[in-house]
């Protein structure tokens, strides 16, 4: 595993990155003398901005609200992409409804996002596509740590590996999943790599020491 220190490491300078995104050819006016290194002050923490999503008005959104009422918290669209925020328990009925009634027959992806500071720590995101409508919709649920959402394998078989990967990376167990084991990491791996509080170097070193008996050298 590559070392995942923040590039720039100890200098604590915010990585400017993106120089590459500049110009086609490198314009190289030699910098005038003595450009002192930028004072290494991280940008002041901004108040947490929110996603500027707009409500999603469509037949489908209304239909869903009618069918599920309270269980649908929000139907929004951002950058032309629609998403639904649902109550954790109702995700599977919604997927089922979308599949059977609205032809969303292709589950593109199941994934999660970790927000350690929030009470409901994880977003679980189901991305759906409908071949006949040529439309995508995302169904999101917010769940606290330890909550076991129901598996979607009964609705879409493809959820099998995708949910296993979510479990592997985030430690979200799906209730009723036929084979809830790690998929990419070794079975005896400790911790869940894509959680924000996962210490990359420590975990890596420990595993290398235990299993290979050498220093990882990172």
């Amino acid at each position, binding site marked *: *595993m590559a070392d995942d*220190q923040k590039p720039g490491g100890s200098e604590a300078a915010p990585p400017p990155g*993106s120089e590459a995104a500049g110009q086609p050819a490198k314009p190289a006016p030699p910098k005038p003398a003595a450009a002192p290194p930028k004072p290494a002050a991280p940008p002041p923490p901004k108040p947490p*901005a929110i*996603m500027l999503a707009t409500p999603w008005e469509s037949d489908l959104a209304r239909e869903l609200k009618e069918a599920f009422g309270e269980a649908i918290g929000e139907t929004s669209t951002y950058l032309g992409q629609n998403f639904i925020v649902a109550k954790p328990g109702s995700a599977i009925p919604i997927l089922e409804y979308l599949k059977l009634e609205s032809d969303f027959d292709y589950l593109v*992806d199941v994934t999660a*996002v970790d927000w350690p500071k929030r009470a409901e720590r994880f977003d679980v995101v189901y991305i759906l596509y409908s*071949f006949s409508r040529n439309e995508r919709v995302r169904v999101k649920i917010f769940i606290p740590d330890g909550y076991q959402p129901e598996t979607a394998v009964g609705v879409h078989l493809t959820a099998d590996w995708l949910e296993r990967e979510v479990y592997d990376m985030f430690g979200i167990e799906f209730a009723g999943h036929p084979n809830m084991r790690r998929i990419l990491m070794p079975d005896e791996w400790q911790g869940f790599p894509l959680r924000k509080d996962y210490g990359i170097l420590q975990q890596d070193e420990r595993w290398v020491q235990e299993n290979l008996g050498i220093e990882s050298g990172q």
Partner: protein
Amino acid sequence: MPDSTFLDSTELVLNMGPQHPSTHGVLRIILKLDGEKVLGTECIIGYLHRGVEKIGENRTYAQFNPYVDRMDYVAAISNGLGYCLAVEKLLNVEAPPRAQCIRVILTELNRIASHLLWLGTHALDIGAITPVFYCLREREEALKIFEKYCGARLTTHAFRIGGLLYETYDGFEQEIRDFCAMFVPKVDEYEELLTNNRIWIGRLKDVGILSADECKEYGVTGPVLRAAGVKWDLRKAQPYSGYEKYDFEIPIRQNGDTYDRYIVRMEEMRQSVRIMQQAVEAIPEGPIMGKVGKVIKPPVGEAYVSIEAPKGELGYYVVSDGSTQPYRLRVRPPSFVNLQALDRMIRGGLVADVVAVVGTLDIVLGEIDR
């Protein structure tokens, strides 16, 4: 004690891989066999896991760009295109027309290169040695164009967020034209070698059938889905990067077996040539870099953008918290999802078909394990 005779057939568990030449990488398949018949399989993956998604969370947007090339390393340019489009979507900018056109040419060239490698190795797995030499010979021409354009053959890092860094080199158009003219007869040549060959037909026909409904159920996309008769290609369904401007067909077949998938991919290469021929005649003038700042800092939000990679739908789900680094970067790899259907495709088949089916799925382990 169960009465068993001396010649009783018992179930045998056989490990195929991870060091097996026809698994195209480090895939381990555990096969449960009854004689020659496959009773069930289980795939063990993750040998190549590098934590690309975690790396993405620890890099700036521009810095992460070279890493995506290392997922599907035979189609690095497609990966780069998907990533750039996803971040551009978050930034709400679009690459200028000239950049889009050059992107299309290179991506299609990369699709050809990827399909050529697939064809060569797939034929090699089946036992036809000759095509691999010819395929790699033609692929070399494509890689040379990449090398001249961006300085690397495989892990190209050709596109930048917002457009392109490199202008085309002198003679780029002519080389693309020459490649197209040279390449179409070559595809006919491969077909001459394989399409009517009785061994090829015998090994591929009615092997690993996956119907359209099963494809949808398993989320399988790309040529596998098209071979099952679903006329669906993201380049047509949700055009990106100016694909709506080009006139091309989506090849489909009806049976959904390994032979049909071969035909579909051959036809796709011809269509790619068609797209390239149209695009190269119409490269607009103008800038190649859109209006993105030096520091890429998308507003808070999220976007899912997917493209038609050579293997299927390649999606990027990017969540931004307003900083210079992605908060969450999820890659939806086509090979990972397609590989899941392997069990359905070979259950009840023969051991020798496993090789054919793994080959026809066109998986790249770098992308599955990420």
